[in-house]
């Protein structure tokens, strides 16, 4: 009989194994079900993201290999680009190309830093734990291949997890100097915090010891800073100990230096446009076709003009060619140099022409001082300081009245017998004319007239009426009466002068200019077209400008010329005729007289003309201020107002004015945009010792006697190979990029305050940490200021002593205050930017 099955006891092990197998299977099924019914791959997430990343819902946003879809994450098991996920971080966190380097710093910075620290490491005992770590798990290989973001920033640790927290030991694993804590063997500070000099040159010692007491004694009412907080403030950006604005601190004593009130010698304005003084006699002797040029000018070619002329290759070559030439003494100049000077003259004329006929912005727009970057409209506005066109026009009309014709007709060889329109200058340039220059018939009336004209022109008369810094009426000169007599005699010669002038004008066209054009590079069609256009413009304006020019050239002889009828029948104006209005674009509606005013002026002119004729008849010609003004400006004066204020003083609070043969700009005060923009623009193109036009502007504006005195306080950094910069911007959080050390003053104020109250530290305020260096005041001042005489910002001798590690250690030790690495040091030295989200504007 077969034994019943029930009688055989079940093996518990087999039951257990069955249960185990079933449970394992159930686990697989549960996992699969949970995975299938969960949203995306969220089920697989090991933990919530930190709150800063909480909005990220798609795993593939960070885990690049996981992709979208339920099972795509399995692709992650296949080897791929190990750096891909870290690069995904940079989608939102903008970092430099060196993002995956240690500290995200460049290799050069790391090497420099490591080399420096190696010396310190030799004297620092290495803790046992550090040695063990270094032996067991060295980090060289890890770092060499680049550090992933997740090395330090481990996600999925919970909403409140601090992603930026990092253990001191992790920092230590890479560093060559290994120590346990700040209060153990942290290296001593090296000249902290003077890694670079302050941007503002402010001699604390000199002010404390000398200037403040002196000012207090001299001007008791003046407010002298009595606490550090009068000038320093760290409230706006806690990472930076900022200096209070200029107008709250330095302005009381230093504003006058900026606007030039305290300037004892030299012009108070910056010569922007000049007609440089030339050795006209030599140029004439050498038959240089410079055309009309004021011989009396002693101005230098302004560096700004050098930049404007040097805006193209040809201009740069020209500036280079005349660079070493003494323009006012060309006796030893070679033919090439004479040729270069001649070309320069025409470049200057073209520049003036362009500034009048076009827009100032057009002239500056193609300046090649910004590495080919197009200048913005705002910058051009700053670079020109919104110079009024009429300032240039009036200057041109006084200095180069025939400019339009000259540009139209071009330069011509100034053969003495042909250069009638320039002989006025040429002959006047020689007080003792040589025999060759003064032929016998020079004693003729015509020559006398011309001589008189030139004299009247070359010696700028005293201004009797001016507006906006421009002279409207000039005081008559002593020899004007004589000139009038000569003019009367000239009438008899039947306009010979005009004939000569006209001949010169007619002969001069194009020959030399065409020569210039021939010199132009092949590709300069545009320039040729401009020139042709200028010629066309000039043709229409020729008669007017001729007359005007003649009138302006010869104030005293004006009436004579005006009355003279040229042989060729060209229209000239009589004295009682209204001067032809300049091209519409050369007038200023605001400055031009109204119709009513014009009628009054005409009536006045008629009266003056008849009076003159009467006086001429009586042999007594008195100067006519209105006529003079008309001649000077080309625009009928609104009113002749006498003023004792010279143009420079007129522009006391800044702006444009004209003096001698220069158009000058006087700084408006602190933060003058004109100076600022030129310095900012030219600095990067102006390495120290460079002779480029840009460097010339930079050197001019940063000279110790420069107007505006910007660099008296704003230090100049020489960026090796990258030009120079003037430190206008105060230090900011951004400017601290690249630094390994952080310091925030704010909590230390509290700590020092508490310390003082409870008697731990002395009641010395800021001087608790910043101790004035112990040296004679003169020596301190001298060393301090000397450190700014060179361009390296890292070379610095402060008025204050360095901050010692021991001082920090008073509080930052194991028992009092934190001393972890990241308290004072930052890891990503070049910062991490999180740009604004790319949000589309909602549409209706």
């Amino acid at each position, binding site marked *: 009989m077969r034994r019943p099955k029930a009688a055989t006891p079940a093996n518990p092990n087999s039951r257990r194994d069955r249960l185990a197998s079933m449970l*394992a299977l159930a686990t697989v099924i549960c996992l699969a079900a949970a995975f299938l019914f969960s949203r995306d791959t969220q089920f697989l997430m090991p933990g919530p993201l930190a709150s800063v990343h909480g909005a990220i819902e798609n795993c593939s946003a960070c885990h690049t290999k996981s992709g979208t879809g339920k099972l795509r994450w399995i692709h992650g098991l296949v080897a791929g680009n190990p750096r891909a996920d870290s690069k995904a971080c940079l989608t939102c966190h903008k970092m430099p190309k060196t993002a995956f380097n240690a500290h995200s710093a460049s290799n050069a910075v790391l090497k420099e830093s490591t080399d420096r620290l190696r010396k310190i490491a030799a004297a620092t005992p290495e803790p046992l734990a550090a040695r063990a770590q270094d032996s067991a798990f060295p980090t060289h290989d890890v770092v060499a291949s680049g550090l992933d*973001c997740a090395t330090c920033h481990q996600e999925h640790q919970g909403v409140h997890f601090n992603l930026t927290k990092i253990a001191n030991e992790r920092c230590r*694993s890479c560093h060559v100097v290994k120590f346990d804590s700040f209060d153990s063997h942290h290296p001593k500070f090296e000249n902290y915090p003077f890694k670079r000099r302050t941007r503002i040159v402010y001699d604390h010692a000199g002010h404390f010891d000398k200037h403040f007491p002196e000012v207090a004694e001299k001007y008791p009412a003046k407010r002298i800073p009595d606490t550090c907080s009068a000038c320093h403030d760290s409230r706006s950006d806690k990472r930076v100990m900022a200096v209070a604005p200029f107008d709250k601190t330095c302005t009381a004593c230093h504003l006058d230096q900026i606007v030039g009130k305290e300037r004892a010698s030299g012009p108070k304005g910056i010569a922007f446009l000049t007609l440089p003084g030339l050795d006209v006699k030599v140029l004439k002797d050498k038959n240089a076709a410079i055309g009309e040029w004021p011989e009396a000018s002693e101005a230098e070619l302004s560096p700004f003009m050098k930049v404007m002329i040097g805006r193209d290759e040809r201009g740069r070559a020209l500036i280079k060619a005349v660079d070493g030439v003494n323009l006012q003494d060309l006796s030893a100049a070679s033919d090439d140099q004479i040729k270069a000077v001649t070309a320069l003259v025409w470049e200057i004329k073209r520049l003036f022409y362009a500034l009048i006929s076009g827009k100032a912005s057009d002239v500056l727009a193609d300046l090649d001082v910004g590495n080919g970057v197009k200048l913005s409209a705002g910058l051009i506005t700053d670079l020109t300081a919104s110079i009024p066109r009429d300032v240039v026009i009036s200057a041109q009309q006084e200095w180069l009245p025939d400019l339009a014709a000259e540009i139209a007709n071009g330069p011509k060889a100034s053969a003495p017998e042909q250069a009638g329109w320039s002989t006025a200058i040429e002959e006047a340039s020689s007080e003792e004319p040589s025999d060759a220059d003064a032929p016998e018939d020079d004693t003729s009336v015509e020559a006398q007239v011309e001589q008189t004209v030139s004299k009247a022109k070359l010696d700028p008369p005293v201004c009797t009426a001016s507006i906006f810094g421009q002279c409207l009426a000039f005081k008559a000169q002593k020899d004007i009466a004589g000139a009038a007599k000569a003019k009367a005699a000239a009438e008899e010669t039947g306009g010979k002068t005009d004939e000569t002038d006209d001949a010169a004008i007619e002969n001069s066209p194009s020959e030399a200019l065409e020569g210039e054009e021939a010199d132009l590079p092949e590709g300069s069609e545009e320039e040729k077209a401009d020139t042709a256009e200028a010629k066309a413009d000039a043709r229409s304006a020729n008669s007017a400008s001729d007359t005007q020019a003649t009138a302006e050239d010869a104030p005293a002889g004006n009436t004579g010329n005006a009355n003279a009828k040229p042989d060729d029948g060209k229209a000239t104006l009589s004295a009682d005729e209204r001067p032809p209005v300049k091209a519409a674009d050369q007038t200023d509606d605001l400055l031009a007289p109204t119709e009513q005013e014009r009628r009054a002026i005409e009536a006045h002119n008629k009266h003056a003309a008849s009076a003159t004729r009467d006086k001429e008849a009586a042999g007594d010609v008195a100067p006519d201020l209105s006529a003079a003004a008309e001649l000077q400006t080309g625009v009928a004066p609104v009113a002749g107002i006498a003023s004792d204020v010279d143009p420079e003083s007129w522009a006391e609070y800044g702006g444009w004015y004209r003096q001698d043969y220069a158009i000058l700009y006087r700084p408006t005060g602190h933060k003058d945009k004109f100076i600022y923009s030129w310095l900012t623009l030219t600095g990067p193109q102006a390495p120290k010792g460079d002779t480029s036009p840009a460097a010339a502007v930079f050197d001019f504006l940063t000279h110790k006697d420069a107007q505006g005195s910007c660099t008296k306080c704003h230090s100049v950094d020489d960026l090796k190979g990258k030009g120079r910069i003037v430190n206008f911007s105060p230090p900011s959080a951004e400017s601290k990029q690249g630094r390994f050390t952080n310091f925030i003053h704010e909590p230390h104020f509290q700590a020092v305050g508490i310390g003082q109250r409870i008697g731990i530290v002395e009641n010395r305020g800021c001087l608790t940490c910043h101790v004035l260096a112990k040296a004679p005041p003169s020596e301190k001042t001298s060393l301090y200021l000397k450190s700014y005489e060179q361009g390296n910002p890292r070379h610095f001798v402060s008025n204050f002593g360095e901050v010692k590690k021991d001082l920090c250690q008073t509080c930052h030790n194991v028992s009092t205050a934190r001393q972890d690495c990241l308290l004072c040091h930052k890891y990503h030295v070049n910062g991490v930017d999180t740009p604004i989200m790319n949000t589309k504007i909602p549409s209706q």
Partner: protein
Amino acid sequence: MRSVGRQSNGSIGGRSPAGQAVQVLVIAAIAIGLFALVSVYGNGLRDPRYLDGWVLAAGIGLQLVFHTAMKTARLARRSALRFRTVHILVGYLLIAAFLSHSDFSLPDTSLEWALWASFVLVTLSGIFGTYLAWSLQAKRGIDERVGYDRIPARRAELAREVHAVIAKAAPPDATIALPAPPYHAWIADLYANHLRDFFQGQRNFTAHLVGSRGPLKRLTDEIDTLSSYVDQESKAKLAAIKTLVEEKDRLDFARVYLGLTKGWLFVHVPVTYALTVLVVAHILVVYAFASGAW
């Protein structure tokens, strides 16, 4: 029937106190060493979770090997005992690895919770099993010759034996004329009130679970008290009954502990299987979503 300690026959239990102390120290030292290693590894700009994670996975794998070996290989008894000792030691070390891997914190997500709960369940059941082994040795040994499956039969034998003792009639005493006290009735009452129930099945489960000998003492005290009032013959009978009671109590104890020993394995082993599945899934997910810094 003999009841002997482990020292003599290799029964379940610990070593000597000194040996146990050494064992604890070794476990503690290895655990501290593991923590230190993980810390140093992490400080070396690596993700320490990969190190302790793999230590954990390797340990679980080793335990599985133990389980398989115990199931399949015909190990000698001594070898099996040694193997089990290693299993327990590795189990303790895995607790350290798990604490390190979970960073002494609770999980956040369901999958992590499943892993955590599985491991904790396996660990607790293992610890419970180890405690059982220790408590047996610490309190009372179990004669391993008494198999768990034979206990009911033996208990039934004891019940029959005690019934036989009770039912055995005492010979009349000829020397005493006076009527004898009803000794037999007293013993019969004892049997009826206490012993019959006691011998009928598993009793005092809770007391045995916590190692209390109170119920046994109460019963033997009852027997001893009665023994003072009976004649020599009845005394001998009561002594025999007491011996049977004590043996029944040991059987109950063995039944409880051997039952628990088998019971905890019904948790420990199947949950280990589930844990193994979860661990494999965990490793796959971790490597699929790894972002450098291993």
